[in-house]
């Protein structure tokens, strides 16, 4: 479900109320792939179980036949038989366990893979609307929790159910009335389980929510440690974290209060049933109506009857606990891919670089238009600067060219091709976008520059970084291009990070280049130096440049002044200066300031 409000660590996520059977069907699709192996495991389990049944029979034979007869030979035979049955049992169980280790790990792998793949399809909006820690916990922690339930849990259910059916049949063969007494415990158990199930499910959903909040807070604060420290907020943050941690503890204790009831509950019902058999069999039924053997047999069956139920109860428990996680996982997988390839999407042919906006309107949130009927044409090879106040919609316009968002109305054409009709990959892989925040992945600097073009040669990397004047500082780092950096890249300055991501963009050899405040943290001199190299690379490529520093944009072929969701002015520097409009005003204030 799409949320209108952004989620934070303070709020729980939306809960889908009644458990949806759809989730189970979904889960079964992961199991189906291993149906063969799992049936094999099931059969082996059954065989192993049958082998284990020999033991009491053998003991029986020994006591009844071998010992009274003093038959040593028979004793030896029985012992040999026992060893043999154990050997087979061990063999079957070992193979079964090996199969199941593989299956359960494969199932986690599959779910995680699909979840991650789906996340790659989700639009910016998805990531903008919730703390990243909440997404992360689903991919990593939740998936781990559900595997056992889907693999071994399922086998247990089948085996124990079969077991139960056999026991019930045998029981009825022995004595119908006493069997009914035994089965009287079942409705009681059902009511108990139904009652506890609802409590448990809600309780475990809360646990997952609180953990998710904690994870969100944790992740933000690891990333923002420097902010915490500069504001000396450690004590307050520790209190907030402690509160979140306390909610986790509270919900957990609430949940186990119910979960831990299941086993004692079954145990109590089982002993009551056993007592009922004795009372009914010995006191209620008339003498002679029932034989001694029957009571022993039924009481034996009754004991064995509750064992599978107890196991089923545990499986059920496990299931309820983890269903909360399963729901979250599938919810993420069901998150609509709003920006997706059209069903008849074609591959974008090699881009030449003409960009046309036709009456484009766009809003991030409903009824709040950011762009209104924007139309413009950028010729192949033209360089266009977008200027205007912050928040006017400049970044929005350039992000639409790569179709990071769907537009509300109008069309965006590249080389005459409507970009909503081509595959995202073929479109975006031809675009070079340098965003405002220059994210650095952990790895070497070389890896980061190669990000968009993993197979680029060392020479190409070197050339790109020389072009953007990053080479000189990279060479000074302890291991040069092999220096390890990480996400927060603390030992790189913001300007250096921008240069690296600049090199990264150039190396991907885009047909259309978008620089969104790409050089804001780079000093003017360095920018000047890289401009020359850049100009050479840009010649013939269409480019969009967003910058506030007018020295950066003055040389562009065209300048568009954006404000209030539309193009206010458009023209060359000289034209706009003559016009004495918004751009003129902007330019002269800047110059006045300096002079």
């Amino acid at each position, binding site marked *: 479900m799409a949320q209108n409000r952004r*989620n934070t660590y303070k709020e729980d996520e939306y809960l889908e109320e009644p458990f949806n059977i759809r989730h189970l069907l979904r889960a079964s699709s992961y199991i189906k792939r291993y149906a063969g192996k799992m049936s094999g495991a099931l059969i082996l389990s059954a065989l192993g179980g049958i082998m284990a049944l020999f033991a009491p029979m053998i003991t029986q034979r020994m006591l009844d036949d071998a010992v009274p007869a003093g038959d040593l030979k028979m004793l030896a035979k029985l012992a040999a038989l026992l060893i043999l049955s154990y050997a087979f049992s061990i063999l079957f169980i070992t193979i079964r366990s090996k199969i199941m280790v593989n299956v359960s790990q494969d199932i986690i792998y599959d779910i995680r893979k699909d979840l991650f793949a789906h996340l790659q399809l989700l639009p910016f909006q998805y*990531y903008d609307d919730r703390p990243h820690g909440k997404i992360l916990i689903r991919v990593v922690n939740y998936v781990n929790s559900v595997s056992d339930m889907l693999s071994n849990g399922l086998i247990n259910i089948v085996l124990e159910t079969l077991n139960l059916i056999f026991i019930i049949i045998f029981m009825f063969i022995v004595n119908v009335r006493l069997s009914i007494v035994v089965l009287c415990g079942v409705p009681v158990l059902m009511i108990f389980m139904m009652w506890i199930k609802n409590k448990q499910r809600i309780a475990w959903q809360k646990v997952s929510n609180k953990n998710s909040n904690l994870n969100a807070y944790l992740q933000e604060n690891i990333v923002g440690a420097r902010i915490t420290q500069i504001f000396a907020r450690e004590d307050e943050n520790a209190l907030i974290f402690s509160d979140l941690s306390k909610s986790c503890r509270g919900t957990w204790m609430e949940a186990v209060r119910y979960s831990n009831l299941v086993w004692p509950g079954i145990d109590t019902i089982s002993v009551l049933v056993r007592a009922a058999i004795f009372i009914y069999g010995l006191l209620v039924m008339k003498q002679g109506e029932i034989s001694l053997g029957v009571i022993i047999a039924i009481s034996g069956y009754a004991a064995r009857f509750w064992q599978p139920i107890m196991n089923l109860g545990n499986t059920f428990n496990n299931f309820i606990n983890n269903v909360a996680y399963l729901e979250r996982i599938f919810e993420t997988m069901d998150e609509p891919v709003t920006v997706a390839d059209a069903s008849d999407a074609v591959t974008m042919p090699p881009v030449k670089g003409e960009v046309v906006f036709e009456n484009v309107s766009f809003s991030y949130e409903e009824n709040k238009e950011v762009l209104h009927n924007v139309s413009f044409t950028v010729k192949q090879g033209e360089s266009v600067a977008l200027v205007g106040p912050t928040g006017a919609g400049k970044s929005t316009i350039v992000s639409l060219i790569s179709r990071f968002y769907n537009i509300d109305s109008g069309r965006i054409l590249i080389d005459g091709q409507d970009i909503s009709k081509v595959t995202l990959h073929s479109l975006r892989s031809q675009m070079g976008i340098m965003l405002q925040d220059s994210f650095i992945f952990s790895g070497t600097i070389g890896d980061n520059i190669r990000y968009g073009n993993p197979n680029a040669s060392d020479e190409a990397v070197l050339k790109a970084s020389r072009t953007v004047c990053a080479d000189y500082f990279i060479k000074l*780092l302890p291991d040069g291009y092999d220096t390890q950096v990480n996400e927060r890249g603390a030992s790189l300055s913001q300007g250096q990070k921008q240069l690296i991501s600049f090199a990264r963009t150039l190396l991907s050899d885009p047909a259309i280049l978008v620089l969104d405040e790409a050089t804001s943290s780079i000093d003017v001199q360095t920018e000047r130096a890289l401009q020359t190299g850049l100009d050479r690379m840009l010649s013939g490529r269409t480019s969009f440049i967003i910058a506030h520093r007018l020295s950066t944009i003055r040389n562009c072929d065209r300048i568009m002044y954006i404000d209030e969701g539309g193009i206010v002015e458009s023209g060359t520097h000289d034209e706009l200066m003559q016009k004495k409009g918004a751009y003129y005003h902007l330019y002269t204030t800047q110059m006045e300031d300096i002079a």
Partner: protein
Amino acid sequence: MNTGNGRFPKGRIAWLWENMEGRHLLYIAAITGTVVYNIMQLTVPYFSQKIVDTFLSGEDAAYNLTYRKDYLIHLLVLMVSLTIARVVIVYLDCMAYEHVSQEALFRIRNILYDKIQRQDMHFYNIYRTGDLMTRVTGDLDAVRHMIAWVIRVIIESVSLIAATMTFFFYMNWRLALLLMITAPFIFVIIRLFRKRVAPMHASLREKFAGMNTVAQENIAGNRVVKAFAMEEREKERFDECNTDYRDTNKKTALTWLTFFPYMEGIADLLSVILILAGGLSLILWPDLMTMGEYVAFSGLIWALANPMRMLGNVMNEFQRFSAASAKVMEIYYSEPEIKDREGAYDAVDRLKGEIVFDNVSFKYADGKLPVLKNISMKIRSGETVAIMGETGCGKTSLIHLIPRFYEPTEGDIRIDGRSVKDYTLKSLRTNIGLATQDVLLYSDTIDGNIAYGDMDLTRKEVERYARYSAASSFISRMPDGYDTVVGERGVGLSGGQKQRISLARALAVKPAILILDDTTSAVDMETEKQIQHSLRELDFECTKIIIAQRISTTKSVDRIFIMKDGQIAEEGTHEELIAKNGYYAELVRLQTGEAV
């Protein structure tokens, strides 16, 4: 990395015990409870046996059934009530384990969080976000599991085996002794298994953290991923970790399965011994053992075999705990290099804000070359200075030394005549307002973000600081105004808007020293002009250090420092530096596009 015990001040178990502080008695009670209910479990079959013997199979069964019904009821009531008593104990016992484990988890988690948030930058360069998160979540859960489950199962197994063996020895010591011959084999298997599996668990934790890191960065960097259309590559990258983690998991689980047949064999051997030795003695030496004794042994043999069957699982969980606790303890016992020195001065009063750099040199721990070389400068209280220079010349490093994000390798920095090392970090940093280059906002309301440094700020004050940083106009245009929730890292806001909120945040703490690290680079000229204006008219006195690229920002400051290769190359007012005709004058020419 060495995961041995010697690295930490305490062993793992002692460490666990320490973190159960305040719950020691409860935990001992829980362990006692486990012993009690396991012994009780052995007594329940006794009652059903007694009922069968007395009223069904015994010689006087018919008589008893007719005339001693009250005894039957008595036995039944005992059986039921003992079971219920046991069940209640089990429940309370489980809850006690949960309680203690949750308390310990709570305590350790809070300590870890606090350790992490107080670490210096060096630490953050080494540990990746995903790795740290794994330690606080997944690894810590293994620690919780140890307290809540593993120890309980160990106690359960030990008490069950001990009680049964005591009973066996009491009944028939010869047969009991014979069963004991399996014990040495069990120890050998456990030792071998442990040696094989321990490194696997350590590697499993690493793989898990690795996968977490890849996923974390993919989510945090989702814009870059999409911009480069690298989704396929990311999938491959994740697939590698995912596969690696899966395979290590399989390997670890399969390791037990190579030992499983032997362990299971030994568990089954108990029954074989029983049938062979029991049968032989019943046939050949009947006076050594009675039939009843044999039946009792055979009826209780599960109480020895089942715990043995659990051993593999328990050992695995124990090793998981060992590997995970090593990772947790690494953070638990970590100490930042930059911390309050003993007897540090806790500045209660607001500082005046005079800053002196005295021959300061600085080099990053992993760096080859010094970033700052012998910098000396004095910034007077209330002065506004600008620092300019090429990308990577050391501007940011210089100002990061003031709040002690790093320690200079040489020289000293003094504020109001006292070395920054002599202040408590808290009192030093509350006097400094820093708006960093890399704007980091929290997923919270705009109000919450601006009031980050002072949560008691009223809405009126928040609005005032937003006005100072020229943010109030765009904030008031947002759907929920100051209550608009901005996404993580302030997504949904433009770069300039984020910078303005970050500036308001820094102003809102009314610092004695305000440092703006290129804070207005993404702000348009007009807005910047407003900001410059309001910075001059703040409602509190402060020393201002402004790093900027734009001449318009730096033009009207008291003094300008030009840095080059970690040194101060030029110093003076706008006019003085233009007259000098050096770097600054060149900068002015470049930015105005004409000779001045």
